[in-house]
């Protein structure tokens, strides 16, 4: 049995990875039109944050705000008008490592700033503050199925509320002992602006929920796959491979251990 959502328009796309900094670069590498830049970027510097905040912001916040802003800009949408779905497999692994290490030694010395940046909705909170948006945001997680759930929730909001949604997913590098059980390397952030269908100039996304197991998931096939494979958000790549191809494409993402998201991009 499967259930489908009405089609939505993909108005904006953003992508940032340590080796593929920006959608134009990532798309060209995915299409085999160029090689990835030889050196890795450290992290993005989102213009939404003031210069002092840019330095202080945790990696998750810098990354999420960079791609969220990028997708809104590509869509020509004012960020303050959009609902937002933020998703991350692990949240800020560096801050979790700091919290656990400090709690094991000197718990009363926890930094209040690190604590409030440790919440899973920190990036979403900074986004709403930076864009002065009172629209609702959410912050979700679904382990290896995080990206599929993010796209589904965003498209469901578009369908139910008739409003545009910015969908943001990100994972950062693990540090310390936590990295042995929650492995993730580099920074990978992606964002989409999804909207009610309008002009013909945008690509349409149709989603269908169906039953199936991990064996049915579309594998990443492009030259970008090896570059992002060790980041926890790597399962998003096949979707962006479909976006990089102007032809109609079908991608199967995971929603849970037994359910799948079939995405068609036209």
């Amino acid at each position, binding site marked *: 049995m499967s259930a489908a959502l009405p089609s939505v328009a993909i108005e904006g796309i953003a992508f940032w990875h340590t080796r593929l900094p920006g959608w134009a670069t990532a798309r060209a590498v995915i299409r085999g039109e160029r090689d990835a830049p030889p050196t890795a970027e450290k992290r993005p510097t989102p213009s939404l944050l003031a210069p002092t905040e840019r330095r202080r912001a945790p990696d998750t916040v810098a990354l999420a705000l960079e791609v969220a802003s990028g997708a809104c800009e590509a869509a020509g949408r004012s960020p303050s008008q959009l609902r937002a779905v933020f998703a991350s497999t692990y949240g800020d692994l560096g801050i979790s490592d700091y919290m656990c290490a400090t709690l094991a030694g000197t718990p009363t010395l926890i930094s209040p700033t690190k604590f409030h940046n440790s919440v899973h909705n920190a990036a979403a909170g900074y986004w709403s503050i930076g864009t002065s948006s009172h629209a*609702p945001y959410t912050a979700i997680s679904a382990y290896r199925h995080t990206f599929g759930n993010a796209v589904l929730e965003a498209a469901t909001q578009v369908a139910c509320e008739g409003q545009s949604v910015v969908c943001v997913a990100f994972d950062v590098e693990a540090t310390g002992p936590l990295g042995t*059980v929650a492995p993730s390397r580099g920074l990978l952030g992606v964002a989409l602006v999804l909207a009610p269908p309008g002009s013909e100039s945008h690509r349409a996304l149709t989603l269908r*929920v169906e039953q199936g197991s991990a064996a049915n998931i579309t594998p990443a096939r492009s030259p970008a796959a090896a570059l992002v494979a060790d980041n926890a958000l790597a399962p998003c790549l096949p979707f962006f491979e479909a976006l990089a191809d102007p032809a109609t494409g079908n991608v199967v993402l995971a929603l849970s251990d037994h359910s799948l998201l079939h995405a068609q991009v036209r």
Partner: protein
Amino acid sequence: MSASKFRQLRVTAYTVCTAAGTGRAATLNALDERRSGLTRNDFGPSPLATWIGRVAGLEADPLPAAWAEWECRNNRLAWRGLVSDDFNDEVAAARERYGAERVAVVIGTSTASIGASEDAYRRLEPDGRYPPDLRRPIVHTPHSLGNFVQHALGLRGIAVTVATACSSSAKVFGQAERLIRAGLADAAVVGGVDTLCGSTLFGFNSLELIASECCKPFDVARHGINIGEAAGFALLERDAASGPWLLGYGESSDAHHMSAPHPEGVGARRALQDALESAGLTPASIDYINLHGTATLKNDEVEARLVADLFPSRTFASSTKGWTGHTLGAAGIVEAAISLLALEHGVLPGTLNTEQLDPVCGPQIRRENERRRAQRALSFSFGFGGSNCVLAFGRGDLQ
């Protein structure tokens, strides 16, 4: 495409498990008899001087062997909640009715099982690796909770964990309602679980938001929060003959500060207006409000002003944090469950521990319990990162 209209859902089963009691009957008794679940903090190796809402006996109550992969305090509490009031049997019946793939799981938490990672860091191997018993990746992710709940209930559809701090397990009602409205599920298990852990106890301590004594919501001399732990679940269905109604909900963002509410309650007001609008209600039709009422200086001030401005004096409003402590990511479901108990039994809980209400409070905010038939209730959840959610519930016999 035009927006589809919010569709009211029935709550066909629910349960709650806090320091004040396990299950609906024990919770109702504690509320009725004004028996607090708060105790002196004895959690962890170096407990802070505060009071906590600790659920008794979790240490000696491991998960059934089949769920050993998910073993941790947070999932133990989740399991205790799932078997309270035979909630898991109610879900099994829904699974039979609709199919395991048509019952979604949308569950909230703030810290999930971070306590397991904290434990690992206290017991690291000499080479820096986790101790062997904690090398279970699933418990070191926020989705530990949603993934466990889905497996423990034998469900095979959508499963997602919502982590927006203190609004988490209120927002799950909205997300689940949208999934059902869009036809992606016929029913949904919503709820939330948060357990005591060093991150929240010492984290809120670093922000100087922890009270050294029992929390006193809306008291003129309130000094901060007591952290509690809790599990709560509700089953939402589209086509059911009985059960209280989820009448509506509203969500918003403060866009103000990561750890302080907007001083004029701009976001809270917006979430409230949206909740009333989606439910087709006005403030005059609200009998009971379960406030967020954390007992921090700012939250209670903003919330009291909002209630005094918008509601008639007959609306009965209170904070139940004096019974349970602030259960953070579980607060939404705990207070939704208390609101449903109030509607079902006509027991409106006052505000425990509070001696002298802050003058900013209007006549709506009550200290004493009252027995009164209530038809419609709101539950407020306002969290870190400025994430707000207001839920509206109605008695099942409402026309």
